[in-house]
């Protein structure tokens, strides 16, 4: 083999099954789900049966063991319908469960992970607060241990799947100020003192429900503490690495869908008596889009391959995220431009891709935060 193949036969099989599932169970409904601002809960169960939710998780918990590229194949196919919201909503477990998998006791894993992989319960991750998201070490939601319960007070916002999550992996302050006072608690939605807002109205990601969560003397069993007390910050930071990789993959796929739509459109659409592909300006624009996408995708895969081998990629995955999301903003912006007035109309895919792209450089750590992370590691 003269160059690295990231995807082997089995990855392709997994991709094919996922694609077939997506074509039948998601594609026909995605426009309606986007408009409705939600997708049916039973989609979790259907996806779970195939193994889509549990790819990369241990078989003992109902998952399917697989390397990072197995997961990437699944994530890529789940983006085919061109709805970032759908993929984020269906995939919120991938940010909520990994800390439990890494640090939870076998009992906690059985209690919290298995039902989510089976599609019976929905999981969300709550770190961001109304007062700030970038400064994780400064979070203000408190949890005070009283007898065998933590009494939680505070609020979280912009929480993906927040409206209907059954369990929320929540970052809380159990100790003093700064990063050394943070812990992770799994808070179940039926806990007294837990409540949530209506779905927040968003620019994009319409198919996913995003909520503000409130904790008002919310009594959480002490047994729901994940890992050691006051060690939560490190779990959150570790968790971010994979989320950032996933965001990069989503950005690359979003851009690919936009580019593919454009390549088709420029050959159909005529202006001044010829297809708009006939204008050199147009062709060069498409070349720039295709080139940046190619570079972004190859770099992302390379970073993933190293992460898969256990190589520290904190700097590189931050670079991948900031590059891929910026590339995606450019490509989707130009895609709308290429479609002209139609690009501004809801019935055209590029309109949605453009709106959905905007969150990618904000969620999972902003571009500015990515640059801070990289800066600390280059000098």
């Amino acid at each position, binding site marked *: 083999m003269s160059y690295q193949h990231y995807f082997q*036969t*089995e990855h*392709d*099989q*997994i991709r*094919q*099954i996922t694609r*077939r*599932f997506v074509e039948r169970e998601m594609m026909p409904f995605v426009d309606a789900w986007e408009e409705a601002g939600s997708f049916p809960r039973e989609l979790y169960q259907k996806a779970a*049966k*195939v*193994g*889509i939710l*549990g*790819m990369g998780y241990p*078989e003992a918990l109902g998952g*399917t*063991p*697989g390397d990072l590229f*197995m997961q990437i194949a699944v994530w890529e196919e789940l983006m085919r319908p061109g709805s970032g919201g759908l993929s984020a909503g269906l995939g919120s477990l991938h940010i909520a469960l990994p800390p439990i998998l890494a640090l939870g006791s076998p009992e906690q894993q059985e209690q919290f992970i298995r039902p989510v992989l089976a599609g019976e319960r929905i999981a969300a991750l709550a770190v961001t607060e109304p007062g700030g998201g970038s400064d994780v070490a400064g979070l203000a939601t408190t949890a005070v241990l009283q007898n065998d319960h933590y009494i939680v007070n505070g609020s979280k916002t912009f929480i993906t799947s927040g409206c209907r999550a059954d369990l929320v992996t929540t970052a809380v302050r159990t100790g003093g100020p700064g990063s050394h006072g943070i812990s992770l608690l799994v808070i179940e939605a039926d806990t007294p003192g837990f409540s949530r807002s209506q779905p927040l109205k968003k620019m994009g990601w319409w198919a996913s429900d995003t909520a503000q969560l409130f904790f008002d003397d919310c009594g959480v069993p002490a047994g729901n503490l994940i890992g050691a007390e006051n060690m939560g910050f490190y779990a959150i930071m570790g968790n971010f690495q994979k989320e950032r990789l996933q965001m990069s993959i989503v950005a690359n796929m979003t851009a690919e869908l936009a580019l593919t739509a454009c390549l088709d459109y420029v050959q159909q659409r005529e202006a001044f008596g010829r297809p708009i592909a006939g204008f050199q300006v147009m062709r060069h624009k498409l070349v720039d889009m295709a080139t940046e996408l190619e570079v972004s995708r190859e770099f992302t895969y390379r970073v993933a391959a190293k992460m898969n081998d256990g190589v520290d990629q904190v700097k590189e995955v931050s670079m991948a995220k900031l590059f891929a999301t910026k590339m995606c903003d450019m490509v989707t912006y130009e895609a709308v431009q290429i479609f002209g007035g139609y690009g501004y109309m809801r019935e055209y895919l590029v309109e949605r891709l453009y709106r959905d792209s905007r969150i990618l450089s904000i969620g999972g750590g902003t571009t500015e935060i990515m640059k801070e992370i990289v800066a600390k590691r280059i000098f």
Partner: protein
Amino acid sequence: MKVVVCTKQTPSTTAVFSVNNGAVSWEDSGGKPNVVNPWDEYAVEEAIRVKENHGASQAIALTMGTPDSQEALKTCLAMGCDEAILVSDPSFAGSDTLGTARILAAALEKIDGAKVVIFGKQAIDGDTGLTPVQVARKLGWTPVTYVSAIKEIKGHTITLERLLEDGKETVTTDLPVVISVVKEINEPRYPSFMGIRKANRATIPTWSAADLNISGGVGAGASQADWSHVYAIPAREGSVEIIEGDSVEEKVAALVDKLFEEKVI
């Protein structure tokens, strides 16, 4: 009681066929050239359900074909079949439906405890729909075609529903039975990821002509049916006309006139 599903590996529904000088070839942009015959997905699903709901001890997938037919058998395993068996021998090449039926019947006789054999309605390439009944004839078992439901398996009998053009029919017959099913019977499940991973590691036994004691009546030489002339149907001539008009009413009136003119209505 074991249930056996007979399935054939065929090109997928996205394949595009062409005929050149009597030779059939096909291309597939999907990248996955060979699949379980799409009609057989219902048969595989039903076999798994016979195990889940009617107490069969095992669901076994059976294919007669070239060694690469293992791919389709792996899909059957990934969907939930317990075992898969490939029947393959160079001497089988070119068998007609009767030869195919002889081979499958011999294999079915070798599977101890097989009581229910399920086929799809037809193969999307050969399209004869003959194999199930010919297999039943060779075995001397009851054939039931167009099955749209397995109602009950009790003692030595099975009750089935058949979907016919003008209605449905309930049939009760003795086991063993050979049935072919229609797509209304169920909604096939997707192969699961865990199933795929396990199927890739499974060894699929291959039974040869010697294993089945077959020494004649199969293969190209024994075929009674000969594909003497294969050709593509000439493309249908047609044209498209877009009806112009200032209003919907005007366009509809023009369309109705046209349809009368062409004697469509």
